[in-house]
């Protein structure tokens, strides 16, 4: 019985194409380019039966021992043959294997090993079952958020191990073993008023003060391993080498940032490799939806029905956008001018909103810092807590309200929908990361007296020693407060907004369900929250070595909380969030956060005077000078090499070389895309040639 696909003349209706005469498809079937599609013979042996050595019909011919060796370069798993054929091939392979050399056998074994390791790694990923369940119920769009969260947990854990292993653990070990720590620098040359630093409370303290200290990192929490101020500028001498604590602190912080950068870039490149192959990504939207739109991982239930609806909705939206673009192109010049003026005004409004938000943050920080060292114990605990958390509160409120305004404004600007989404996202990212920078900037203003070393309070110690005797710990405390507040906000929003909303919608009057609807899990704002939290951790890591560890626990907690709220309160989004391109976008925003976090780190290391009353760098002119001193102690060759690497004579030619390389790569990419266009045209020509030739053959025969 001939399979259906081998019968000729089975083209669909109306497919005559441009040639008038219909070429029989049987000839097309025999072309080499269609070879992979023909494979199933009409007869298959059942499982467990003795293998027949005859070749079943329909199998591609000329498969002898010589070909079998070529086959093994393609693993058996990848061949589109039925089971019987694969078993036959494997038997052939095993028989041929006896004649192989050592090298071939070793190569095959390596390949098997790699496949096994790959398979094992796939199973060993943490939270794999949870992610599968989320994917089954809500689709890959929402799963990408949890994937990103899992990556952040692993990243933070790695960083925490680094910091704890090189800074916290050795210090704890030295103290526990009561090893002799030699002070590295004499502080006698320094003005004694700079050395006044005593964060521990005097006299009777109320119980609530302990709670307040726990939540804001002051008081009993300040002189602990958590903050910079606890560590000492000393070295511990062992037999043969000496463990230099400030050097360890500096190097492990720099290593933490570099490891994060390397890890994120590697992951981004891995994700980018697949998407960079296409040149016209925007033109693939329809094929994407038709062929890859259905989420085959969805388990049965209401989600399937919703998926059908969302696909229909998306296709309709795309068609509408198409007609909108066509209408926009038809606009008259006067209408266009009016639209541009409107857009200019709205952009100005956006800038004004951002400026207002930043100014509020600056005021809040200034007020909080000033009132913190004025009266300490005369206000109520709750008021003091509120004042201490004022910057965090203002930042969070701004981050929630201003994007709502952005969403409203962008609808007035009448861009196409895809551009609307991107623009809102871009503005929100800018807002969140800049608000952090504004907070740091306002702290900097207080610490360095507006950058003026001759101002009255900064004259003696080159930083404001009255307000901030240990300024690194102050910065660390602000970041610690931001971290805690972020977690508190997630909890509060979940308990006070999402659960009640679910209860109201399901059990309340029907009109609530129609007006408000069930909560939708929106991926972009949640991801921006994560990126913001991670940036806070990075900025604070230099001043608080335990912060990455705390961040790991926080993200683990957030994973379970978000999973709980997803399954209890949310429904899937109407418009599906395309997971793949957005995975890369998340990593890009994360890299932006890392870039922003590098700025305060580098500035503190190179330009600011470390506190003289506390910390592992007390008495040094800058943090970087520790490293310079350590380099000076190296043997001559290494020292001269490192000094050369750090000098301008090396940096400038390197920079020029990198510029030339970048320019060359851009030109190369340009020429490749032109080549691809030419090849596409050629391919069309070849296709027409092929059809013409086949038609001629059938006419002649």
């Amino acid at each position, binding site marked *: 019985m001939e399979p259906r*696909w081998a019968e000729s003349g*089975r*083209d669909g*209706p109306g497919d005559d194409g441009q040639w008038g005469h219909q070429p029989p498809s049987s000839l097309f079937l025999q072309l080499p380019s269609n070879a992979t599609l023909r494979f199933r013979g009409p007869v298959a042996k059942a499982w467990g*039966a003795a293998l027949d050595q005859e070749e079943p019909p329909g199998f591609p011919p000329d498969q002898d021992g010589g070909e079998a060796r070529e086959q093994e370069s393609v693993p058996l798993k990848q061949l589109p043959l039925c089971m019987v054929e694969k078993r036959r091939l494997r038997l052939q392979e095993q028989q041929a294997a006896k004649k192989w050399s050592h090298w071939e056998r070793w190569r095959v074994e390596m390949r098997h090993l790699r496949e096994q390791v790959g398979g094992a790694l796939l199973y060993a990923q943490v939270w794999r079952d949870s992610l599968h369940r989320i994917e089954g119920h809500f689709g890959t769009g929402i799963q990408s958020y949890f994937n990103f969260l899992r990556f952040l947990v692993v990243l933070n854990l790695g960083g925490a191990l680094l910091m704890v292993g090189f800074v916290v653990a050795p210090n704890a070990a030295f103290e526990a073993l009561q090893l002799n720590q030699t002070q590295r620098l004499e502080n006698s040359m320094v003005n004694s008023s700079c050395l006044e630093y005593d964060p521990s409370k005097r006299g009777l303290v109320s119980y609530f003060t302990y709670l307040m200290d726990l939540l804001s990192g002051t008081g009993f929490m300040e002189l602990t391993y958590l903050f910079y101020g606890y560590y000492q500028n000393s070295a511990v001498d062992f037999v043969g080498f000496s463990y230099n604590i400030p050097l360890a602190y500096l190097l492990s912080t720099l290593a933490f940032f570099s490891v994060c950068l390397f890890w994120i870039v590697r992951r981004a490149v891995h994700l980018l490799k697949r998407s960079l192959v296409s040149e016209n990504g925007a033109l693939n939207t329809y094929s994407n939806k038709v062929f890859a739109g259905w989420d085959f991982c969805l388990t049965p239930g209401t989600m399937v029905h919703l998926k059908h609806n969302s696909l229909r909705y998306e*296709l309709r939206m795309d068609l509408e956008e198409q007609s909108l673009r066509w209408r926009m192109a038809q606009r008259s010049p006067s209408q266009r001018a009016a639209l541009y003026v409107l857009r200019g005004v709205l952009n100005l409004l956006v800038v004004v909103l951002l400026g207002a938000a930043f100014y509020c943050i600056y005021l809040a920080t200034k007020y909080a810092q000033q009132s913190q060292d004025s009266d300490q114990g005369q206000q109520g605990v709750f008021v003091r807590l509120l004042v201490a958390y004022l910057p965090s509160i203002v930042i969070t409120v701004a981050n929630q309200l201003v994007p709502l305004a952005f969403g409203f404004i962008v609808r007035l600007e009448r861009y196409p929908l895809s551009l609307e989404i991107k623009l809102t996202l871009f503005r929100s990212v800018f807002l969140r990361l800049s608000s952090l920078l504004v907070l740091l900037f306002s702290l900097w203003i207080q610490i360095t007296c507006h950058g003026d070393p001759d101002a009255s309070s900064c004259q003696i110690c080159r930083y404001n020693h009255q307000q901030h005797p240990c300024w690194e710990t102050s910065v660390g405390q602000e970041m610690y407060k931001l971290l805690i507040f972020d977690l508190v906000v997630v909890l509060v929003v979940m308990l006070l907004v999402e659960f009640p909303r679910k209860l109201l919608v399901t059990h309340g009057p029907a009109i609530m369900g129609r007006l408000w609807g069930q909560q939708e899990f929106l991926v972009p704002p949640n991801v921006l929250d994560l990126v913001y939290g991670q940036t806070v951790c990075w900025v604070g890591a230099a001043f608080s070595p335990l912060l990455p560890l705390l961040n790991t626990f926080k993200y683990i907690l957030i994973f379970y909380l978000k999973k709980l709220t997803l399954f209890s309160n949310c429904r899937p989004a109407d418009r599906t969030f395309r997971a793949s391109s957005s995975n890369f976008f998340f990593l890009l925003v994360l890299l932006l956060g890392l870039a922003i976090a590098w700025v305060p780190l580098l500035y503190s290391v190179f330009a600011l005077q470390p506190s003289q009353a506390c910390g592992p760098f007390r008495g040094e002119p800058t943090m970087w000078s520790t490293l310079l001193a350590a380099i000076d102690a190296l043997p001559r060759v290494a020292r001269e090499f490192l000094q050369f690497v750090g000098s301008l004579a090396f940096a400038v030619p390197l920079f020029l070389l990198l510029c030339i390389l970048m320019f060359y790569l851009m030109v190369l990419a340009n020429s490749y895309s032109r080549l691809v266009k030419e090849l596409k045209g050629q391919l069309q020509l070849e296709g027409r040639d092929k059809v013409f030739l086949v038609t001629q053959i059938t006419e002649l025969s």
Partner: protein
Amino acid sequence: QQNKEDFFLLVCRLHGRYHEMAPNIVPMDYTKDPDVKLPIQLIINMPELKENPFKERIVEAFSEDGEGNLSFNDFVDMFSVLSEMAPRELKAIYAFKIYDFNTDNFICKSDLEKTLNKLTREELTAEEITLVCEKVIEEADMDGDGKLAFADFENMISKIHLR
């Protein structure tokens, strides 16, 4: 050795599923080469395939006779290709066969229309369907014959970022 044991357990589990769909027909003992095929109606009622809009096409693509009657070999084949460990190129080959409704080794406009109808449960208007099909062919057809050969399909799939 561990690999072989896991593999054996997997095959036993699959055989269990195959058997429970029609316990009267499927024997537990396969060493005597039984020629047993389950009809398509039983297989598309499996919970894994039930909600899949392309369930009939999937089963037909893996059957020997093209009608959807699967022997145990074909059953194992189907699940091995559908699993997440199967390589992308293999999945592309079978995806092409699945979307090719009239099995002429081309995805023509009528195939696309049937695909769309299955995806959206026939709730798009005829005009919308025609528009979308034209757009898809415009995006993916490389050799200009108005329908998608396997090379066109594979090229387009490789550009689509799955996951």
